[in-house]
């Protein structure tokens, strides 16, 4: 088949830039990378056919500079721009600038991005399409009108506490504040609005009931220019902390075929109503009673798209390029959609991030000194990191996405456990211990997932302290092993240990023998 384009600019960095460049090359297209000074020798730059420097390390001066990126695309003769996720991926103004320059934006139309990027507008679209939305307001809360305070309080009590103050322009888990008591509401609204204005350039906030316990389940969607929209399957992303996903899997455990058909149908209805083209994801909460509540639509490729690729057998990025070139939904995509409610395999992804899981997942950037990723059957690793690389504090802490694919969920968990045991990372703290814990946790294995899982099941400091005890003992023994006595200073009469045949100091052999004698096998 002819390539959808001949040359594509990838407006991103890290693993997702590499992922998109790989799709370009498989489709027979050339890829243009952009990079900041921090990434001059990064993997995505080396993988690309051309690369353009766009600025210094801070995102605001490089990967968020729409003008510099459009200029780079025009200068290199690229026909299309793929934004990846994050950075400019959901900025309608960027999509519009790309189109104005005569290029193709690989993603939904800028009008759909604008309509769905405003979370409040998305809630109204869903409501009009007859899709149940999480209880809350459909209009902005007027935070600067003292005369309206009584009305807001009435509204909040009708919605029910605890509730969330959310930024209409927020996303990626940012711009959310939790309010438990009515007396905290006015302050939370003001602070939330200020934060939203500073973070997203728009201080509009709204109220949403906090559904607890809830599972976070989302649906992968594709749409073409004829208005056809299909669902490729769902992902359970309930294991989160502070609204940031840590583990994603597909299919969502415990759903019946009827549940899946209902959920996929709701997602397609919202997307169709918004005129979705290309790829997007509709997010829902599932409450204890099994009801689905619409949350929001992300008008871009998701971080976790790979698990859907493994289960559906589809290359979502390749599909995006075809759709962007104006082609109708491919036969492959339609086949995948037809089987989406009856999945025949299972995939799980863990996000390895440079974060300290003993310190509330605080960022832990630094230089990677050792980097061993797993392999073998059913394992996929999307990463752009290698040993010697510096994980910069300027960007997202995600360092690798480790995915496994197997016949069913128990087999996938066993494979993930095995794959995580193969991982070796030095120089930076990552979320690896958290993931190793999760895959051995009985509740996770039983499919008991909820957005409160991390708080209920994970005690980072306690897990770490057990490891610290082992590390100290090992370091002590190693130091004793290495502190070989200097021969001339040891008088012959001293019962100094003689070197054993294997060249080690004999205390080691003694210690080993003593241990072996006491604990055979």
């Amino acid at each position: 088949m002819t390539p959808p384009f001949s040359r594509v600019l990838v407006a991103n960095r890290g693993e997702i830039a590499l992922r998109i460049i790989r799709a370009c090359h498989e489709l027979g297209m050339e890829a243009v990378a952009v990079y900041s000074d921090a990434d001059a020798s990064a993997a995505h730059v080396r993988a690309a056919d051309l690369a353009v420097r766009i600025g210094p390390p801070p995102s605001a001066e490089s990967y968020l500079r729409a003008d510099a990126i459009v200029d780079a695309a025009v200068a290199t003769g690229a026909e299309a721009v793929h934004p990846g996720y994050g950075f400019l991926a959901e900025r309608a103004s960027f999509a519009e600038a790309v189109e104005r320059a005569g290029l193709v934006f690989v993603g939904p139309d800028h009008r759909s991005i604008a309509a769905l990027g405003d979370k409040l507008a998305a809630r109204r679209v869903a409501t009009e399409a007859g899709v149940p939305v999480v209880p809350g307001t459909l209009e902005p809360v007027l935070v600067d009108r003292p005369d309206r305070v009584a009305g807001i309080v009435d509204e909040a009590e009708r919605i029910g506490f605890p509730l969330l103050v959310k930024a209409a322009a927020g996303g990626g888990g940012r711009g959310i504040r939790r309010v438990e008591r009515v007396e905290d509401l006015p302050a939370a609204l003001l602070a939330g609005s200020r934060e939203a204005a500073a973070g997203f350039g728009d201080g509009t906030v709204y109220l949403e009931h906090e559904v607890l316990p809830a599972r976070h389940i989302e649906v992968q969607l594709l749409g073409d220019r004829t208005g056809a929209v299909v669902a490729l399957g769902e992902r359970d992303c309930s294991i989160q902390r502070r609204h940031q996903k840590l583990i994603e899997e597909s299919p969502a455990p415990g759903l019946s075929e009827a549940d899946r058909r209902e959920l996929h149908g709701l997602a397609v209805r919202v997307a169709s109503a918004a005129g979705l083209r290309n790829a997007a994801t509709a997010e829902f909460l599932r409450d204890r009673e099994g009801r689905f509540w619409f949350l929001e639509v992300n008008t871009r490729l998701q971080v976790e798209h790979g698990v859907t690729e493994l289960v559906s057998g589809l290359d979502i990025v390749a599909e995006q390029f075809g759709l962007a070139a104006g082609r109708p939904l491919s036969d492959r995509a339609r086949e995948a959609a037809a089987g989406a409610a009856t999945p025949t395999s299972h995939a799980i992804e863990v996000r390895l991030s440079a974060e300290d899981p003993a310190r509330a997942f605080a960022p832990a950037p630094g230089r990677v000194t050792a980097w061993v990723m797993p392999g073998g059957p059913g394992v996929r690793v999307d990463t752009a990191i290698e040993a010697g690389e510096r994980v910069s504090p300027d960007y997202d802490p995600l360092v690798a996405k480790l995915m496994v694919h197997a016949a069913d969920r128990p087999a996938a968990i066993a494979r993930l456990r095995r794959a995580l045991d193969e991982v070796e990372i030095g120089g930076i703290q990552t979320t690896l211990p958290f993931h190793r814990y999760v895959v051995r946790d009985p509740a996770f294995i039983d499919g008991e997932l909820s957005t409160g899982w991390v708080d209920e099941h994970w005690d980072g400091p306690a897990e770490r302290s057990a490891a610290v005890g082992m590390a100290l003992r090992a370091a002590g023994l190693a130091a004793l092993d290495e502190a070989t006595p200097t021969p001339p200073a040891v008088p012959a009469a001293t019962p100094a240990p003689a070197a054993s045949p294997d060249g080690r100091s004999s205390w080691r052999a003694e210690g080993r023998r003593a241990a072996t004698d006491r604990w055979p096998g």
Partner: protein
Amino acid sequence: MTLDGPSADATRAPGPDGDGRGSRAMRVRVGPASHLDGDPTVVVAVSPTGVLVDGTPVGLDLTSVDGRHAILHVAEPAVSGVSGAAGNAGSERAVRLTLGALERRTEDAVGRREVVVDGWRVLVEVEPEARAALRERARRGRSERVAGGPVDVRAIIPGRIVALNVASGDDVTAGQQLLVLEAMKMQNELRAPRDGTIDRVAVAVGEDVEVGDLLLVIR
């Protein structure tokens, strides 16, 4: 063979360098970048009969796989109160770990290395127990004179200074916010470790700092 454990006779100072005795026991602690309170310090020693941790015999052995990978064999305690030698031998757990390269400061014989256990990265400091005891006695005398001496506040993560709440000469109380360090879009507030007066501010808003960089001094 004698042991320089924590209960060892304080008058038994180590002999001249190289007699080997001081290195029969090692004091091990989490390194200077430790961010969690309450990380323990242990003394690991060897005797002809086995390994002692803090003076207590334990079933512990380290097998090196290569220069970097090792296995720590940990004997789980046997069930007590059961008679007979054969029935309660306990079991052994093998903990796989990696040992980073040892960096040694020549002036004080303290070795530093990274140990990764179960994905946890632990920076450890190792020092011959006899030397550690000597150094501690010396410091005790000194610290009594300079109790409340200057404290260097250093960066424990790399990032950018986005707010500075104090200036040189300001009085601060323990827990008071000193500055905000942004890393990966997260704002990390740095608070005063104790009461005092800001002696010097070594950074400015907008500046990038690396781990260990001096931020300010409290006196």
